[in-house]
C-alpha cells in the first residue's frame, strides 16, 4: 500500500530507494509459501494414491529374449528418438541430435545474456505470439514429415482416390532387370510387385539407381568407365585409413570406408531438411518484424524443439503399429510374439 502511494505521489523519482521497497514487497515464507507447498504436496499425494488404487502399473509376461513383441517400443520419453531412427542415420537420431539439443539448452543462458524481461511470464513484446507460432509450426512440420516419409501409406479414406506421397516420384521408371549400367535414374522394384516411387528417404540409397560415364583417371572408384549409384560409391576409402598411426581405437578412421549414398540419404538430406525448416521459420518471423532479440530466436528454437519432441513421441506412441508402420491408433495391434515360446 505504502509503496503504491509513494509511487503515485512522487514525480518520477530518479534515484529509486530500492532496498527499502523490496522489504515491503516481501512476505514471510512461513506461512505464505510453506502453506502453498504443503497444499500442493497433499493434493499430489492424494491424487497419486487414488490413481494408483484404480490403475495398475503394467506387468506383461516374463522377459524372454527369443520372443520379440511387434512393435517393441522404448519408454515414451525416448520414443521420439526411436521415431527419428526410422528417418535418418541411427547415430544422428539416437545420439547426436539429442546431444545437440541438450547442449543447445545448456548454452542458452550464455548466449542470451540480456536481462530484459526476466522473472515474468513472456516478458518480451512478441514472445507469446512467437511461442504459439513456433509450437504450431513444429507440430505440423514434424507430423507432416513423418507422413511424407511414409510414402506407401494411403492418406485418404478408403472411398476416395488413393493419395500416397510415393506417387510424387512415380515418374521415375522402374529399373530394367539384369542390366549393369542404367544411365537415367530408375527405381528398383521388388520382383513381381507394382512400381513404386520413392517411399522413404532411405530408398535414395537403396532403390534409386543411375550411372554416368566416368573416365578411368586418377584412381577413381570405378573400373569399368561408368559410375553407378549406389554401387560404386558405397565403399570409398577414407584417406590414411590403412596407415598405422595411433594407439588402438584412437585412430578413429582406421579401416573406414564411406558409403556416400547412405550418407546422402540418411544424413545429408534429413539434416539439411531440419536446418532449413528451422531457419525458414526464424527468417519468416524475422521478416514479419517479430524477432527483435536473441531471446526471440531462442524462444522459437526452444519451443520448436520441445514441440517436435512431444509430437514425435505421440506419433511413436499412437501411430506406429507392427513393423513400425504408420497407422491410426485404433488399428494398432501388438503381436506379443509366438505364444508357445513363453517359459513356464
Amino acid at each position: 500500500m505504502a509503496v503504491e502511494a509513494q509511487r503515485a505521489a512522487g514525480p518520477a523519482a530518479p534515484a529509486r530507494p530500492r532496498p527499502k521497497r523490496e522489504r515491503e514487497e516481501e512476505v514471510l515464507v512461513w506461512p505464505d509459501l510453506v502453506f502453498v507447498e504443503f497444499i500442493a504436496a497433499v493434493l499430489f499425494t492424494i491424487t497419486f494414491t487414488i490413481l494408483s488404487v484404480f490403475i495398475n502399473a503394467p506387468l506383461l509376461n516374463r522377459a524372454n529374449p527369443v520372443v520379440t513383441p511387434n512393435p517393441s517400443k522404448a519408454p515414451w520419453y525416448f520414443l521420439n528418438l526411436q521415431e527419428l531412427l526410422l528417418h535418418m542415420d541411427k547415430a544422428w537420431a539416437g545420439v547426436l541430435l539429442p546431444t545437440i539439443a541438450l547442449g543447445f539448452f545448456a548454452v542458452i543462458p550464455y548466449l542470451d545474456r540480456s536481462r530484459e524481461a526476466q522473472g515474468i511470464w513472456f516478458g518480451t513484446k512478441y514472445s507469446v505470439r512467437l511461442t504459439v507460432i513456433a509450437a504450431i509450426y513444429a507440430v505440423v512440420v514434424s507430423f507432416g514429415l513423418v507422413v511424407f516419409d511414409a510414402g506407401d501409406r494411403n492418406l485418404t479414406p478408403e472411398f476416395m482416390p488413393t493419395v500416397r506421397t510415393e506417387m510424387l516420384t512415380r515418374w521415375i521408371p522402374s529399373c530394367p532387370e539384369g542390366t549393369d549400367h542404367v544411365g537415367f535414374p530408375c527405381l528398383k522394384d521388388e520382383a513381381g510387385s507394382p512400381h513404386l516411387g520413392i517411399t522413404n528417404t532411405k530408398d535414395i540409397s537403396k532403390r534409386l539407381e543411375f550411372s554416368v560415364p566416368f573416365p578411368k583417371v586418377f584412381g577413381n572408384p570405378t573400373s569399368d568407365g561408368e559410375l553407378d549409384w549406389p554401387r560404386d560409391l558405397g565403399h570409398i576409402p577414407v584417406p590414411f585409413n590403412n596407415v598405422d598411426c595411433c594407439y588402438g581405437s584412437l585412430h578413429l578412421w582406421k579401416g573406414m570406408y564411406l558409403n556416400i549414398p547412405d550418407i546422402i540419404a540418411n544424413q545429408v538430406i534429413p539434416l539439411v531438411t531440419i536446418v532449413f525448416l528451422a531457419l525458414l521459420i526464424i527468417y519468416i518471423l524475422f521478416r514479419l518484424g517479430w524477432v527483435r532479440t536473441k531471446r526471440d530466436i531462442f524462444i522459437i528454437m526452444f519451443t520448436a524443439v520441445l514441440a517436435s519432441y512431444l509430437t514425435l513421441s505421440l506419433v511413436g506412441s499412437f501411430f506406429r503399429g507392427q513393423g513400425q508402420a504408420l497407422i491410426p491408433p485404433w488399428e494398432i495391434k501388438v503381436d506379443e510374439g509366438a505364444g508357445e515360446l513363453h517359459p513356464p
Partner: protein
Amino acid sequence: MAVTEEPGKPRNWSERIGVLQDRIYDKVFHNYVWQSIFRSGYPNTPRNQMLVVATNVFLHLHPTRIHRTHVKITHTYCLGGLTFFMFLILTVTGVLLMFYYVPDVNRAYQDIAALETNVKFGLLMRNIHRWTAHAMVILVFLHMMRVFYTGAYKPPREFNWVVGVILLVLTLVLSFTGYLLPWDQLALWAVTVGHGIGGSAPYFGDETQLVVFGGYEVGPNTLIRFYTLHVIALPLLAAIFMAVHFWRIRRDGGMARPL
C-alpha cells in the same frame, strides 16, 4: 497475539474455549521436550515464523522472506517443488520396493509378481512408484518450460540452468533404468530399443553398450547394472545436484524477477 494480551476472566463459552486452547497450546509448545526439538516457538509471530524457517534444516532450503510475486501460484505453479516432491515419494516407495526385489533374472519377475499379490500394499506401492515416476518426467519438463518462458535462466542464474539440464538428464536416465527392473517383456524390449540407440553412438557404440548395458545384448549384466544405477548411483547424483540447485537459487539472490 492472544498470548501477549492480558487474560481477563472468561465471560462466555467461546472465551472459555479460548482459554482452554491457550492452555493446550502452552502444554504442547512450551514444554521442555518440544523446545529441545524446535528451538523457536510456535510460528505464530513474525519473529518465530522467520526463526522456524532459519533453524529448521528442511525449511532452511527457503529464505525467510520471499518476494510477493513468487508466492503467487501462477508464477511457478510449484513445478520445481513438485518435481522434488515426486523424487521424495519415489525414494520412499522405492525403498519399500527394494525390500522385496532381487535383481536376478531368475527372480526379478517373480518378485514383482509376488509383490503384487502376496505383499500388503505391495501393488499400491508399485503403482505409486510407477505413476509418480512418469509424473516426475512430465513435471521436470514443465518446470524447465516455466523457467524458460519466465526468462529465469538469465544472469546470474546461467549455471543453475545448466545444473537443471543435468537434472533433466538424470531424471530421464533414472526413469529409464527403472523401466528394466520388472524384467517383463515390456521392460526387456523397451530397454533393447535403448540398447540399440546406445550402440549407434559414433565410434563409441560398442563401448557404450559394454559399459552402460554390460554386454552386446540386454541380459543379467544389464539388470544388475541398471539396478545399481537406479537405486543408488543415480539417486545419489540427483540428490547432490538438487542440493546444488537449491543452494544456487538462494545464492543467486532468490528467484528471478524483473529488474
